[in-house]
Structures are given as C-alpha cells and as structure tokens.
C-alpha cells in the first residue's frame, strides 16, 4: 500500500513525514486551513501501517481485568491478524479505550467508556452500547461513532470529520472547536455547545443550554427544542429545503427522526461580526502584522 516504510518514516522530520503520507497539500483557502489527501493518489487514502481487515472475521475481548493500554494493544494486534469486527466486553468506564485507530474496523463496546473514548480515530465504525465520559471522539477525522446512552461534556471536541452520534443527552461544550464532520444528539446538550466551532454540522434533537454557538466562526447548528440563550455572534438563520432534506436523511439514518419531522428545528449560524471576519487571507494578515 505504501511506498514508504515505517523505518524510513521514523527518520523523517514532521514535514517530510506529512508529505510522505500524502498530507502534503496544505492549502490556505479563504478563512480556513485544510490539510487533505491528494485525490489523485488512491494509494494514499490509507496509512502505510493500516492492516487489511475482514469485516466478517469477528472476535471478542474481555476488558474486565485488562488495563487501557492492554485493551488498545490487543485491538491493534487483532487488526494485524485481520479481524475486522472486534467486540470489547466489560469496558467498565475505563478511559481512552479505542483511541488512535487509523483504519477501517467495526469496533463494538458492550458497556460504557470513560474519558477520551475513541479519540483520534480516522476510519473505524464504532458502536458503544453504553455511555461515554468527557471528550468522546476528540479529534476524530473520519468514520462513525454511535453512543447508545448519554455522553459527558466536550463530546466531539475538535472533530474534523465523520459522524458522531449520541442517542441520549450530552454534557456541556459539545463540539467545542469542531472543524468538520457531523455531531448528532438525540437528547439535550449543555452550555456553550458549538463554542468556537469552525466547520461542520451539529444537530441536537432536544434542548440546548446557554451560550449556544458562542464565538463560532462557521458551521451550522440545528436545535430541535429550546435554546436557553445564544452565544456571542451566533444568530438564527432560515431553515432551507436543503437543510430539511439533510436533517431527514441523517436523523433517519441513525433512528433519531422525530415523529413531527424536522420543520421545528432552529438553525443557528455565525453572525460573522467578530473582528476576525474581514477580507484578508491569513497570508495577507501575516504581511501586515
């Protein structure tokens, strides 16, 4: 799959490594900074160490007497053996389970996770048949994470892509600093959700706490219930037909479609009245500062 070996990667500088992995096209476009794979290089769509797994090859891990490190190492070992569906039993609220998985995998947790569960992932489909603590799927790049019960605060902090779904309610600061992807919450969300959001979409079927979307740069938030208050520079916008179609498709996909449809959702976007909204490109700002 890759033209560069792990040993070679270890000798490279950070910039050289990024280029070798295909993450070389750092572009400044408009007001956002992208780091993306080159679409012409199909072979670059996976990481060089990502194992080829078979989704039909299934196994289980009992995490009860294992440490977080042991569980995560076991998951990697099984992936190297080609297992594409891994069920983790008895996670018992341990922190940082299922983190840093950078390839395709069906990962199922039979129970609840603690903090930072499934953070830093890029590609797997994760189902958590329980609840998660703070910072679930932090910095997620792609894939799906579906939580069947409630989640703690900073759910989906700084995610860049993928679908992150909580069927119950979540804590405060949901989607803080999110840079892409989709967060869907079946219940309520707490204060300061969408704080400094930069891109992506957030859907909350229930109520939102105070200061929703505070200081958001961009992106869209949809709230099905009440909003205690909007944050600085967050404004309501008109729900378009495109929004309705997208909401219907996404909520149906995850079994969260309200009986009364989606017309009642309030759309919140950035008012873009803060100081950082001007016509200068980041490179131009550097020149004048």
């Amino acid at each position, binding site marked *: 799959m890759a033209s560069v070996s792990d040993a070679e990667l270890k000798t490279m500088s950070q910039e050289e490594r990024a280029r070798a992995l295909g993450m070389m096209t750092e572009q400044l476009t408009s007001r956002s900074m992208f780091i993306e794979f080159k679409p012409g290089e199909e072979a670059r769509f996976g990481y060089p160490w990502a194992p080829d797994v078979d989704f039909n090859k299934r196994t289980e891990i009992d995490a009860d007497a294992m440490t977080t490190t042991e569980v995560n190492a076991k998951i990697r070992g099984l992936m190297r053996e080609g297992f594409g569906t891994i069920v983790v039993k008895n996670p018992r609220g*341990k*922190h940082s389970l299922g983190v840093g998985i950078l390839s395709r995998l069906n990962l199922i947790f039979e129970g*609840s996770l*603690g903090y930072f569960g499934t953070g830093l992932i890029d590609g797997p489909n994760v189902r958590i048949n329980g*609840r998660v603590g703070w910072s679930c799927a932090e910095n997620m790049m792609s894939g799906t994470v579906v939580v069947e019960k409630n989640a*703690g605060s900073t759910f989906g902090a700084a995610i860049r892509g993928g679908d992150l779904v909580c069927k119950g309610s979540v804590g*405060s600061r949901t989607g803080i600093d999110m840079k892409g992807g989709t967060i869907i919450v079946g219940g309520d969300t707490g*204060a300061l959700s969408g704080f400094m959001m930069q891109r992506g979409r957030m859907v909350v079927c229930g109520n939102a706490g105070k200061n929703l979307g505070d200081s958001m740069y961009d992106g869209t938030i949809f709230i099905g219930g009440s909003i205690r208050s909007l944050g600085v520079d967050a404004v309501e916008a008109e729900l378009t037909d495109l929004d309705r179609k997208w909401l219907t498709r996404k909520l149906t996909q995850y079994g969260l479609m309200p009986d009364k449809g989606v017309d009642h959702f309030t759309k919140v976007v950035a008012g873009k009245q803060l100081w950082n909204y001007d016509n200068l490109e980041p490179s131009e700002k550097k020149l004048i500062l």
Partner: protein
Amino acid sequence: MCGIAGLIHRGKTSNVGGEMTSMLQSLKHRGPDSTGFAVYGSGNPGDYVMRLKVAEQEDMGKGSGVRDLIEARIAEVDKRLASHDAQVKSQSRVTPYALRYVLGHSGDTEAMAKHIEEVEGVEILSLGNALELIKDLGDATVVSGQYALGDFAGTHAIGHTRMATESDVDIRSAHPYWAFPYNDVSVVHNGQITNYWIMRRQMERKGHRFMSNCDSELLAVYTAHNLANGVSLEDSLRQSIDEIDGVFTYLVATSDQLGMAKDTMAAKPLVLYESDELIAMASEEVAIRSILPQEIDTTDPYDEEVRVWQA
C-alpha cells in the same frame, strides 16, 4: 485536578467506608497528594464523635521531642474537655497524631470546640453525632487501612483525592472540610474559587475561623454560615452559584442529606447515577463502576445544577 465522590443509600445502611475507599482509589490519578473521607454512621443519640489531629504527618520526622509535644497537647485537650463537662466515653489513638473521641456532652459544643482548637497544633477534623471525618496523606487504600475504614457501616459518605494547587500538601489543606462549628456537615470540592479572599474576609468579619489557606475551606465555612442562619441546604447550594466565583463542583453532606452544586460554566466534571436504593456520583464514571460493576445509566449534571438527596 482533584477527584470527588459521594454516595447515599436510601433507607438502609451499607459498608460506606469500603465503598468510598474503592471509589476514591479509582480516582487516585486525579489527586495523589492526600485522601479524605467523611462517613456518616448511625451513632448513638446524645453522643458526639470527635476526630482531631494534634500534629501533621510530616511533624513526626522532626525528632523525639515531637512525641512529648503530642502527649502534652493530648493532655491539654483532655483537660479542656473536662472543663466543659464533656464525658470521654472512649478515646483511641488511630495514628500517632490523630485521635478519635466518643463524648457525652450537653453544653455548648461550639464553645468547647473553639477552646480545644486554641491548643497549638490541634485541629478538630469533625465533631458530630453521625459524621466521622478522616483525612491524611496517601492514597485511599493507605488512608482507609490506617484508619480502619474498610468496614465502616453507614448511610452515606463523601470523599476526595487531592492534587494540591492552591495550598500545601498537608492534612490541614486536605478535604473534606468540616463546616465548623455546624455538627455533621462536611464538604468536598473540585475547582478553583476566584473570589476566595473577598469571601473569606467577609466570613471572618462575621466571626468564622479558617484553619488553612485552601480555597475549598471557604465552601465549608460558607455552608456552615448559611445553615446557622436558617438557610436550607438546597438554598445554600443555589445561593453559592451566584455568590461564589470560579469553576467548581462541590458536594455537601449533612447527617441525613447529600447535596451537589455545579458552577455556571460546568467546567468541573461530575457523573451521576441514581436508583431507588442508591445515589452515587464522582468526578469520573470509573469510580462509580468500582462499586457498581453491572451496566448502569449515568448522566452529567448541567451548569448551575443543584441537587439534594435524602438518606
């Protein structure tokens, strides 16, 4: 960072000492400096349990003279108890510097407590009918073992693992704090109080005493002040969200209640489990899981949320 935990059994007693030990040991990584327990037993009506320390743990390494000093302090405490007509039903030396008394007393407990604390180096950790407050340096297993808490039967408990950020690593600055002089009221806290000095001076002007420079002690004094003025626990917790600045989540226990309050930013964590028999809460779910291994539903209380549960 610090870790806090609380549990309350509804209508029954349980091994709350062992349960809290297990919960706090799970939170050791949040606070390795000291561990504290406030456990609530059934007690004997009319009897007071007094926990006090007569030196800091670190004092014990300061030479043989310390032991003579400690003996002198204990003798002075006993003398002052007698002067307040307190009947010492039992006295046990739990560690070289920590004692537990069971007292019969029908007079002014506040005056007695103040008189005892005037002995240099002596601090009453708790005084009440149901409350026993234990705190020391070390993790939960060490402290629980040292003070024989592993099989303490009671209705509820709160506890704390401390990472010292605002004040020293010593017993004085460890949690829980007893809400002096209010019997049976204790507080644990995770966070930082930013108007601590303003509030402390207000409280001192009203005659309250502070034993440490730890901002968390303010919550105990503040709660004691409110309760002494007829404010209910729930109202005191609600009032604190408006009057106390900073980021905080704290728990308060009384002889038959357990309450929680979260600040306006909800910046400090708390995970809550509620059933008909048991309410358990902690900074991290892993602590609740340590006593409830079966699959359970938990929630995160929101900003400005206040809850009070009855034993």
